[in-house]
């Protein structure tokens, strides 16, 4: 059909299915044209998460604080870490990690959870994990409010101009999160095991990333075992956590008396950003390839 561009939206021909790169542009069009649906789903999710609790959406602020307290007690009391301002030290990593895990966990069940709808209405399924990522962004924004309050009230000596890097680091993380969310939400339709195993893998990933410890610890490990160290530095969350911590807290120092915030490793961030962008395109293509089978398999 040569008049493809003039065909109204209500005209549908199954012979005109795009392939390859066409799938990616189609996905972009779908998300853009249904952006209001994404907004609804995000709002519905937030409404639901606040419902039936005494504090409601205040939990979005309290939750990261409580998590920080748990790790603060665990690490400073049991392991007696000497790191100054350890609360801020781990909060700089817990906050982006919470964003990542909540987005990914929501995304995994986003498609399988709408089983009935998928069998009833034709709509672009890529909207569902996209909405999960959207909810994650709101979650992270609430966390940033807590971070701001912590910095102003408790750690005011750590406030620096380098905080303006946070949106840049967050953008890189967002692209990486989208890639993981699309792939896992699609695979979970066929193998529900994804949901079971991801919780444990995410936990392991957290402990293997420099969240509770710092980049200096990885550095020390790299001196002993160069190959393990090199592998540890390829971890996207090594780059992300280090970047967040550099601009919020400052680099980890072995001796007492830390230097304060510094600019992040821009080269590493740019490399991760590029790779993540590529991964995201592959993930979109992968999801779109699986999509036609969803209604049959669910």
């Amino acid at each position, binding site marked *: 059909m040569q008049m493809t561009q003039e065909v109204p939206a*209500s005209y549908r021909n199954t012979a005109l299915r795009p392939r390859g790169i066409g799938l990616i542009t189609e996905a972009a069009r779908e998300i853009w044209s249904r952006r209001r649906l994404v907004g609804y789903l995000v709002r519905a999710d937030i409404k639901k998460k606040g419902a039936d609790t005494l504090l409601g959406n205040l939990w979005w602020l309290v939750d990261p604080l409580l998590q920080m307290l748990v790790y603060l007690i665990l690490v400073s009391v049991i392991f007696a870490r000497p790191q100054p301002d350890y609360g801020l030290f781990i909060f700089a990593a817990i906050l982006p990690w919470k964003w990542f895990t909540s987005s990914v966990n929501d995304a995994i069940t986003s498609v399988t959870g709408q089983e009935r709808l998928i069998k009833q209405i034709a709509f672009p399924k890529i909207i569902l994990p996209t909405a999960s990522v959207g909810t994650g962004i709101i979650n992270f924004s609430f966390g940033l409010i807590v971070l701001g309050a912590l910095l102003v009230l408790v750690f005011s000596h750590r406030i620096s101009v380098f905080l303006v890097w946070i949106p840049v680091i967050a953008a890189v993380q967002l692209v990486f999160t989208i890639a993981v969310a699309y792939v896992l939400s699609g695979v979970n339709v066929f193998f529900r095991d994804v949901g079971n195993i991801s919780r444990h893998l995410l936990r392991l990933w957290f402990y293997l990333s420099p969240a509770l410890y710092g980049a200096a610890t990885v550095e020390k490990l790299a001196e002993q075992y160069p190959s393990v160290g090199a592998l540890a530095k390829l971890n996207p969350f090594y780059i992300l956590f280090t970047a967040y911590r550099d601009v919020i807290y400052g680099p980890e120092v072995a001796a007492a008396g830390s230097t304060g915030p510094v600019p992040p490793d821009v080269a590493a961030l740019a490399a991760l950003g590029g790779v993540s962008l590529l991964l995201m395109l592959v993930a979109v293509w992968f999801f779109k390839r699986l999509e036609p089978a969803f209604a049959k398999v669910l």
Partner: protein
Amino acid sequence: MSIETPPAAPGPIELSADRLSADRPPPENPAAPHAIDVQGLGVRYNLRLTRKNTLRTTFINAFRRKEGDRTFWALKDVTFKLVHGESLAVIGPNGAGKSTLLQALAGIITPSAGTIDVRGHMSSLLTLGAGFDQELSGRDNILLAGAFMGIEHAEMTRRLNSIIDFADIGEFIDAPIKTYSSGMRARLGFSIATSVDPDILLLDEVLATGDQVSGRRARRASSSWPAAPRRSSSSPTTWAG
């Protein structure tokens, strides 16, 4: 006018081209644009994926490379054409493929063989109230359903009051759906689905669902469609499975 295919034996339905076209009166205007044009439609289910497999059996199947029971054709070589204003009823026993045909026409599942060409806004009433979010209010669910069906927000807010009136739910419209009775839920679903002013309407055994009240309402509403087209250009082509 409605066309009834003879009840087929249980198993995959095979609507051949001549079986359908033989019963159908020739279109009054052959040049009229078709509403639905289905050519050699086939829908294959991959049993290897639809069966809930564990990783172990998946690996075993992958190694054995067993053919045979791995795929199942729910529809094979279905060909027909409908112009605007025509109605078609598909009748068959359970598992004949009626719902699969409707799902394929609605664009929910993609054909494994053949093509479907659809011209006109389509509304599917396959099952009422699918995708209602139990925690959200009726009002929020109306807007959410509209967004899922791809209806413009301004259009949906314009219809909001008539949908609420027709559903006859009263002040419960702002209560979460989980507090609704099944009858209220069915009425709301029907009210949403019938508000969309379609050129082509797909129905799948919905009129038997819901309580007496909603059933009567449903029948009244659906009988008025072919008689009084809401669009001047074309009346809805009604489907019932």
